[in-house]
């Protein structure tokens, strides 16, 4: 426990007669500045080191994607910089005769597009309702979602697979099938945008209601124009998620290669197919996936940060 008996080291000299005079001793100031500079230097060193560690894998990935397939093969090698730089791997990917890569890319893009629209609508309606409307069963719905969220997601995988199969949405119908299961339960991820709606003052709704607006009009004309940041955040998340999903995508599209998404296709190149021959192609494919997503993310980073910090604080 701290005792307050010791005299604190402060840059104040106390003069009994004149009261408190704030005066900073020059030699102390200098030592403080030196201290400051030293700690800043340490921080810079740490940050530079971290930046290297954080960027290195991505830089390596790009290097290896430009390695010449014809001269140096497609496997993993024990050196970093390609001896011959070439676009072999990219050319190979862009030729539909070689692989289904372009189709996978298109599939994922379509899924992402649909998901970003449907999921956003679902999430917005659920979070708006739970945040700003009061009705019987509201608490019950929230508690149910809480409990359902504790079950691991893959538990239901086989059931979903057979449900989709009944609807004819597996294998060749995998893309609409995946859109369906990504979107159907997406309303459960309402927390972050509910947190956002909670922060809007309630008087907005009330004054509009007094002026005779229906709840629908309040939603459309008063609240929606204020939700731009959270709408963008939700769209961004919904758009990015399908690019990384391997598990459901591989299960639903199982065996029907043209209907894979990029994650499944590339994963199989590395882990199932003979990855020594496909490694640089995987790198090139990875670059093609990562670059647009990263650019998109960086452009909308502001909204992402708002969503994440808001969500973490409100739970």
């Amino acid at each position, binding site marked *: *426990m701290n005792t307050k008996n010791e005299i604190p080291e*402060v840059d104040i000299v106390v003069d009994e007669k004149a009261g408190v005079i704030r005066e900073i001793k020059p030699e102390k100031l200098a030592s403080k500045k030196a201290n400051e500079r030293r700690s*800043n230097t340490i921080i810079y060193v*740490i*940050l530079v080191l*971290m*930046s290297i*560690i*954080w*960027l290195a*894998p*991505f830089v*390596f990935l790009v290097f290896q994607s430009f390695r010449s397939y014809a001269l140096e093969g497609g496997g*993993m090698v*024990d050196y*970093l910089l390609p001896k011959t730089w070439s676009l072999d791997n990219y050319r190979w990917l862009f030729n539909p005769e070689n692989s289904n890569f372009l189709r996978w890319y298109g599939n994922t893009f379509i899924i992402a597009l649909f998901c970003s629209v449907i999921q956003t609508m*679902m999430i917005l*309606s*659920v979070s708006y309702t739970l945040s700003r409307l009061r009705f019987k069963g*509201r608490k019950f*719905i929230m508690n149910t979602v809480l409990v*359902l*969220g504790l079950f*691991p*997601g*893959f538990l*239901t995988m*086989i*059931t*979903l697979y*057979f*449900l989709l199969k009944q609807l004819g949405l597996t294998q060749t119908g995998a893309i609409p099938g995946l859109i369906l299961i990504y*979107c*159907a*339960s*997406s*309303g*459960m991820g309402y927390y972050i945008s509910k947190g956002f709606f909670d922060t809007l003052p309630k008087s907005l709704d009330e004054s509009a209601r007094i002026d005779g607006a*229906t709840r*629908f009009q309040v939603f459309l004309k008063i609240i929606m124009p204020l939700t731009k940041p959270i709408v963008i955040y939700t769209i961004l998340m919904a758009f990015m998620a399908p690019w*990384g999903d*391997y*598990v459901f995508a591989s*299960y639903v599209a199982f065996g029907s290669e043209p209907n894979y998404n990029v994650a499944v296709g*590339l*994963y199989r190149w*590395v882990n199932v197919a003979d990855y020594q021959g496909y490694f640089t192609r995987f790198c090139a494919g990875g670059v093609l996936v*990562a670059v647009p*997503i*990263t650019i998109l*993310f*960086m452009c909308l*980073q502001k909204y*992402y*940060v708002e969503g994440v*910090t808001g*969500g*973490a*604080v409100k*739970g």
Partner: protein
Amino acid sequence: MTDLDYLKLSKPQKMLVDLRRFLAALPGHIGNGLKNLVMFIVNFFKGIGLAIVDVIQTFIHGDWKTKVSYFVMGFGSCARGQWGRGILFFVFQTLFNFYMFNPNASQSGLYYLGKLSTLGTIETHKEGRRTVYGDNSFFILLYGVLTIFFIIAFIYTWYTNIQQNKISEQILKSGHKLKSTKDDLQSLMDEQFHKTLLALPVLGVTVFTILPIIFMILVAFTNFDMTHQPPGKLFTWVGWSNFHELLASDTASHGNTFRQVLLWTLIWAFFATFLNYFLGMLVAIMINKKGIKLKKMWRTILVMTIAIPQFVSLLYVSKMFAADGLINTYLMKWGWISAPIPFWTQPGWARFTIILINVWIGIPYLMLIATGILMNIPADLYESARIDGASAFQMYQKITLPYMLFVTGPYLLTSFTGNINNFNVIFLLSGGKPQSMELTGNAGYTDLLITWLYKMTVNDTNYKLAAVMGILVFLVLAIINLVAYNLIPSVKNEEDFQ
């Protein structure tokens, strides 16, 4: 002990007292919970009893329109001019009847319901050269559950239909007018707006989350596995024996493996949550420090790991750490090591590497959150602390940390829960490997419960054990959440934050 005594105690002593109080209150909490549960059940049946009495009373006292509505749903509404509601009721009843009493006997609700207790008795067999398909246990179970859902929905709708008749009668008797279909539609955009907004999401969650979860909970009590796969074979109810197979310690069971995997899951979730939390906070403090330039650039560099899809970054990194990967080959080239470091082949190393790489993934996320919160801490707190002569570490310990912990309490909880179910990192990095003879059921040393569950589903098609595991994961998470819910103040009250 009085409050004053409590305040005089030192920190560890305070924590001890807190813990003792929590434990002392625990039986009370549990007792209360049980009491609530019992009350809930009693009230539930009381409600049903009242509803039945009400239904009978309404039938006796109601007019003929109401009486007909008991058999033809929506008749009363239509007869009183509320066409919209009436037609909806009628359509629902027709659909229900069609589903339940489908003339094609093997697709009707009644058929599935009747077979539910055995999950099918006629096995697929060959008659001469022809294969005769028998019962399909999977569909019997799935549609059996669906039928029960449907029946509950029907009873509820039927009851609503009667209530509507009763209320309409009362309204007409008192001389008022009934709502027209147009009024109904308008109210869906106003007083009943929540129904409009929630209809689709609730339907989606019911069919694609609740139905499958109930189905899988039931599968945990059957012998649905590799050797009992429909349509070729039947499966049936076996009671609790799957729980025994997963938890018991004898040689035919997976008890030892389960305990090891569970322990590693908890260790992993602990490190993945708290290591990332403190390191991420540290990084945020460093970047936010006065006098550090290019703040935005540092953040952007770190955020790369969030932006790039994990299957690209994690798969690539996992190959970097492979025996023939970049890291090992370069370390050998430089002569620092003579043999490759067994990053993925030795249990200890594999676990360490996974936690390490997860820090790489997790720090940026925490850094963003911490940055947002750190900026919200009132600057005058630090100012006065500095005047009192506090060192940087003291300020961190007394101001930053408590503030962060309080504000991010709920986040820590969800993050811990999320990490227990963190599939991607493990699956993409190690795939649960390395495996050994000591672990049964195809589990590996880095497998979490969730990845083991995945393996059981996809590789072994051992659905029954996967279902049991899913239930156990749920129990573990439920316990953690309940305890945390009672200990963390900021989780409890939702409205406080509004």
